[in-house]
């Protein structure tokens, strides 16, 4: 059984947001437009947040890409009254869209604020509709949606592996964000495989998880930024 996880190396991340755009194109997430975006209603399954602190010239700025943490003990699934969201056997916190009734309790119970609500019927200009991905479900107004590690890609890769009667190679399937990351700061793979890149990196001395103290057991690991080291 797979247990999918992600590692984000903050020392390599440049805050370029290629992951953000790749995710939106892959998962048919329309842009919200100026007004809705300013109301905070833009959907970013993969979101890059920033923090600026200090005074000139001692300033610090950090970028943090935030997908769904795919918690092993997800607070969101516990409160869903209709079991529209659940943790699937491979550890992905998935959403059964037709079952969602839009009470948004999952949204308020998510400490990472990575669940998004469809405040309006998603729409694209007619021309853009040609470029929609047929592999992802059409989410309507009034339901909640979220990052699912590009589950459509995983499903497809598993079918392929099955047909070819072999095991999945490390890195054979990755979400759109990981595939595009220009500085190769994102990694994706099977945490159950001790030899996989993500397994090894998740045990790095630099590794940490967001709000670890809450006991949510996220499967997204971050690697801290480092100090200059000439390798002596």
């Amino acid at each position, binding site marked *: 059984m797979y247990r999918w996880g992600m590692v984000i190396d903050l020392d390599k991340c440049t805050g370029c947001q290629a992951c953000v755009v790749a995710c939106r194109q892959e998962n048919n997430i329309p*842009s919200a437009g100026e007004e809705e*975006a300013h109301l905070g209603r833009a959907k970013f399954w993969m979101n890059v947040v920033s923090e600026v602190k200090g005074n*000139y010239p001692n300033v610090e700025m950090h970028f943090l890409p935030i997908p769904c943490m795919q918690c092993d003990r997800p607070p969101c699934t516990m409160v869903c009254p209709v079991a529209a969201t659940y943790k699937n056997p491979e550890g992905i916190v998935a959403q059964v869209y037709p079952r969602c009734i839009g009470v948004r309790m999952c949204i308020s119970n998510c400490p990472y604020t990575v669940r998004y609500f469809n405040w309006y019927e998603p729409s694209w200009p007619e021309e853009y509709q040609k*470029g929609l991905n047929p592999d992802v479900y059409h989410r309507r107004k009034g339901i909640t949606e979220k990052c699912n590690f590009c589950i459509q890609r995983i499903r497809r890769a598993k079918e392929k592996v099955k047909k070819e009667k072999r095991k999945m190679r490390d890195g054979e399937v990755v979400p759109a964000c990981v595939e595009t990351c220009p500085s190769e700061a994102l990694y994706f793979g099977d945490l159950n495989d001790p030899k996989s890149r993500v397994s090894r990196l998740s045990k790095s001395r630099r590794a940490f998880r967001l709000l670890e103290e809450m006991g949510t057991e996220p499967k997204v690991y971050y690697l801290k930024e480092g100090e200059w080291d000439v390798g002596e």
Partner: protein
Amino acid sequence: MKINRRQLLKLIGAATCGMALPDKILHALPKKGEWIPYEEYWSTGICLQCPSGCGLRIRSVNHWPVKLEGIKDFPMNKGRLCPKGQSGLQVLYDPDRIRCPLKRKGKRGEANWEGISWKDAIRLITERLQTLRQAGKPHQLMLLGGRTRGHMSELMARFMEAYGSPNHLGNPSRGSEGILKGHLFTMGIKDFLAIHWEEVNYVLSFGASLLEASRPAIRNLWGYGFLRRGRPGIRGKLVQIEPRFSVTASKADQWIPIQPGTDGALALGMAHWIIKEKKYDRTFIDRYTFGFEDWKDREGNTHMGFKTLVLKDYSPRQVSSITGLPEEMIIKIASEFSSYPPSIALTGRGLGMQTNGTYAQMAVDSLNALIGAIDHPGGLLLQRKPPFQTWPAIQKDGIAEKGLSEVRLDGAGTLPFPFAEEIPSALPEKIQKGEPYPIDTLLLYYTNPLFSLPEPEKFRNALEKIPFIVSFSPFMDETTAFSDLVLPDGTYFERWQDDQVEPGLGFPMFGLRHPALDQPLYDTRNTGDVIINIAKTMGGNIDKSFPWKDFQGALKDAIKGIYATKRGSIQAKDFDEFWNTLIERGGWWDPPYPFGDWRKKFNTPSGKFEFYSLTLEQGLRELSEKSSKALDQILKELKIGTKGDRVFLPHFEKPRWIGEEVEFPFHLIHYKLMTTAEGRGANQPFLQEILGPHLKEKWNSWVEINPETAEKIGIHDGDLIWVESKAGKLKTKARLFPGTHPQCIHIPYGQGHQAYGRWAKSRGVNPNELLVRDYDHLGGFVSYFSTKVKVYKA
């Protein structure tokens, strides 16, 4: 996509047969409760969201592209794409694209168009060009080009030459000319240098926007990641020198906020310490450089060398007073830079767009030469070009010869711009006055001067004087909206075109764009084909200069040269196989890079790297003879503030500012974001919505002010304020950003369109409207960072 019963049955049939063909045809997936099988395939392409030239893998479903990825083994982007690359389908599917040839009906700029057929459109332009030529005035045709990739620039140049006009302005590296001129004077190279990220340990960046708007952006993003964690046990150091706390500065190990326009002095101060402490690369300097020590010319006169100059004029103390940086800091970075090789010093717009940009670049080049960082593993590489076959010679008749003998309208190549190849920003006044001659017809290809040049209003007034303007743009940008005839090109998913990558890898490489759709989305045509079509219709020598059916034919002709070398990533038994493999793989490349080829590559009079630029000396002496002006007089016209040997050595020229300190206290340093780098991303909602992550800004413009400065003048975060220069004023939102130098304000570039589609139009402000034109005359470019401004509450 509508599907009737018959098609549906056909598709299901195809899907069933497809069981034997894994991946080609996929099973059905739900969409709005319906089950529709689809056909999927992958093709290749080359991105054109910036000039990097990244390889694209295009996933198409039922013939429509739905997702872009990078080509895995493409050396430039290694299977990766930046946010602009990822948003490429919003270029293809932009609802406001121009859908057929248009002829102006109402007044200029009124957006009153009449759709016409391609036949009529080509007849219109051809007749106009014929008449102009028959009247013996071919030089009154002008072509402004922008992003002319690959052989498109050569095709354009060829057309202009065969037609007989010297007025071809097609430089795609606008804003970075200072860097190019610096390289020309020190190394005789007319190109950018590539970075050997694979081995470099210490990167010193003089205002290079490495992680936002550099070229090639993707290679530098990858390089940054590799510098940090690519080699076990080694974490390279990045030092960023610039007044603004950019993303690059935030990711650097050290940020050095320097006084604007003084980068060159810092480089020379570092050189002072390195020379004094004898930390330089003696072997490289002895063998491959000229003008380090004092030297004697043929007449026996002694000339000053770089060493003497630097030791005399640029001690850390002297440099400290110029740059505003503490002496210890200058010494510390000089010591680190020379102690942890391989090190490199990089430059960008921040250094190059000042009135002293060329000399500053020469200073940084010299710094690299001092430690032998050029053409060396972990250093700066000299980009090799693919061995294309040259096209047959251009046929010129008497009219063409006569037209070409006229002076260029922009004055490039003559005083006060003797070394410039072109000066688009000098055009407005010359067009306005019609001196030395008027312009009759203007062609625009992938350029938008009414947005991208300083003082666009003046350009607009000048355009009024041109009787006929033709644009080849796929989008209704400001300048296209002001034209008389539009012959729309397709997007980069719909045409044949080669794309030589920006210097980034060193070894030769190019990518091939080919149509990803069966036919263009709309009634558009590849401008390459249109130019050839016009040439054929015009007949005579012009027709003979274009011996190809279409642009694809011209490309094949050039690429045959590469096939003939039998080198590189594609080996084939005949050209057809080579061509098909090229389409399949998206490009051709020929690694590895041959290091240490200094003798062949330094194209200077001495054949060496020149601390003392003989190229510059010879150029100025020839100019003096030709114009019969004394050298001192020429220096005065070039606004160079020094005399003697120093003129030919890298030195610090005091930057000039426009606007008095008292009235205009702030430097306006506009910058480029990763999301808008080339200013062309404003028509893509995906990019608009993630515009400035450092301030969480989107869909708008803003001006960054230092919080303490803002407090002093009573401006709060989010206030609407006026930014005013001698050229004009703009109203926009103030954002207090602690990374702003107290004497600077920053406006990101890319917004403020008055056209360019529904997403871009009437949104934010364009800092170009504030810029007053001053020049680095030696380099021959407009200095974008010279304007000073004041700010006050609206």
